[in-house]
């Protein structure tokens, strides 16, 4: 937060604004047009677009390349980077390469385990963890050095994000972990999708008591649910996800053609509630394979126009 602005997301957050980010999953293929189409849907209604890195361990177009396509469209990407697939040599090299392509935000993750993906037979790397990655990017930016202490010719100056999951266990430790990520160098945090507002509030309260909300920008994750099936899937099959029974009931309670509409309504209510929580500096809208709903949600949430 001390360094000068490198991008829009950082400007919005550092000026005390309420940021909006969205998500774009690269295609399972080499067609850049798909990325551009998604970008077109998101352009102008968000401050930055997260580009996932082989999310759920399914092989896709690389996050760096998809980010670069967005950059050429004038869209600011948040490059997600997982430590699952690359060792420290490849990670550092890709960070520098990404910055050279105009990518100024990074979200440091460990990544979903490959057991769930398209290559469960792969060797995972996990040479360093997400905490180490955060620190690495910070050292590059602040000290201009790589992990070996070498002075870089042109240091990447990335705005550094990390993830937090208030819904994972052990609950008491989650805030401690957040503090550690901040110490390691995280400027902003994007959280797991919030459905259980009570638990999220409890977590935010703990973070605030520890003075953490003063030190980092927290963007709360939201995902509109398109169907009852999706709600149930997320409730039962996605690790670290907390979808309260009541929400599923509510989705089930409406007529089938209206379910998606109900999902959007729930999402808007959640956003409204999140804006009331002290320390929440933005939302991260993950409309998975439903990018065309983003503009509507951002607009109806009263968050347009973007600065």
């Amino acid at each position, binding site marked *: 937060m001390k360094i000068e602005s490198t991008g829009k997301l950082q400007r919005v957050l550092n000026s005390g604004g309420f940021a909006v980010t969205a998500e774009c999953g690269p295609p399972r293929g080499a067609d850049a047009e798909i990325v551009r189409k998604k970008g077109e849907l998101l352009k102008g209604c968000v401050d930055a677009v997260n580009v996932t890195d082989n999310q759920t361990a399914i092989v896709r177009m690389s996050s760096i390349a998809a980010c670069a396509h967005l950059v050429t469209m004038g869209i600011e990407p948040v490059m997600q980077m997982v430590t*699952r697939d690359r060792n*420290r040599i490849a990670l550092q090299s890709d960070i520098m390469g990404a910055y050279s392509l105009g990518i100024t935000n990074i979200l440091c993750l*460990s*990544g*979903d*385990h490959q*057991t769930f993906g398209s290559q469960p037979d792969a060797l*995972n790397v*996990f*040479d*360093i*963890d*997400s*905490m*180490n990655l955060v*620190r*690495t990017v910070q050292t590059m930016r602040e000290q201009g050095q790589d*992990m070996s202490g070498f002075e870089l010719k042109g240091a990447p100056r990335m705005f550094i994000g990390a*993830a*937090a*999951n208030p819904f*994972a*266990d*052990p609950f008491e*430790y989650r805030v*401690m*972990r957040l*503090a*550690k990520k901040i*110490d*390691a160098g995280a400027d902003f945090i994007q959280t*797991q999708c919030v459905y259980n507002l009570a638990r999220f509030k409890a977590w935010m309260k703990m973070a605030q008591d520890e003075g953490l909300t003063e030190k980092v920008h927290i963007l709360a994750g939201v995902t509109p649910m398109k169907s009852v099936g999706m709600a149930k899937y997320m409730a039962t099959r996605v*690790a*670290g996800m907390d979808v309260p029974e009541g929400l599923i009931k509510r989705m089930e309670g409406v007529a089938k053609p209206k379910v998606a509409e109900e999902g959007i309504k729930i999402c808007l209510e959640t956003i409204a509630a999140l804006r009331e929580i002290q320390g929440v500096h933005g939302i991260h809208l993950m409309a998975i394979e439903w990018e065309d709903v983003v503009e509507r949600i951002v607009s109806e949430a009263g968050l347009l126009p973007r600065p």
Partner: protein
Amino acid sequence: MIVGEQKPISEIKQIIAPYQKVLILGCGTCVKTCFAGGEDEVAVLASALRLVCKTEGKRIEIEEQTVERQCEDEFIQESAQAVSRNQAILSLACGAGVQAMARRFTTAPVLPGVNTTFMGVLEKPGLFTEECSGCGDCKLAVFGGICPFTRCAKKLLNGPCGGSQNGHCEVSSDIDCAWHLIIERLKALGQMDNLRVYLPPKNWAASLSSGPRKLIREDHML
């Protein structure tokens, strides 16, 4: 101890297919304890292979022997005669034992009959769990005696990932989340402060990453 599991009969059949006289050589140490390659397993496997070969009308002669430890020359030597009587050796030792045999008997084919799986403990009768990956740089003191490099599916060293729920790992509800265990243990020890400290990237140079390792004890060399 080293834990291993006998290969499926179908694979063993394929491995020994070119030979008519085979020595099944057990090892009386680790693999005996985990029921993969001790004397009893040698006997059962020999019997199963004889039955299967008879059923299929194939000729096979199987000799059975078990030595105390296949990873030490002193014990390996006891098998020399049996080795010379057979065309191939099906070793039920761990991968180290198989290689030690191959090193000793340069002209005899030494075939593995066991998949060596991990270094672990006998948690309770019939249950073996992986505990150590021999990384060469033990940090168990920090983690309350639970190794995240081995027991966390992502080798995380600065705390649990976002997939840990109710004490289970995101990979499977059959797996305990190592980080959950670490936190419980450190809480009990009053050492939670260990986890507030940022741990720099692990030095994997001491591990297999740097190539096969050696332990040299000059004082024991002649």
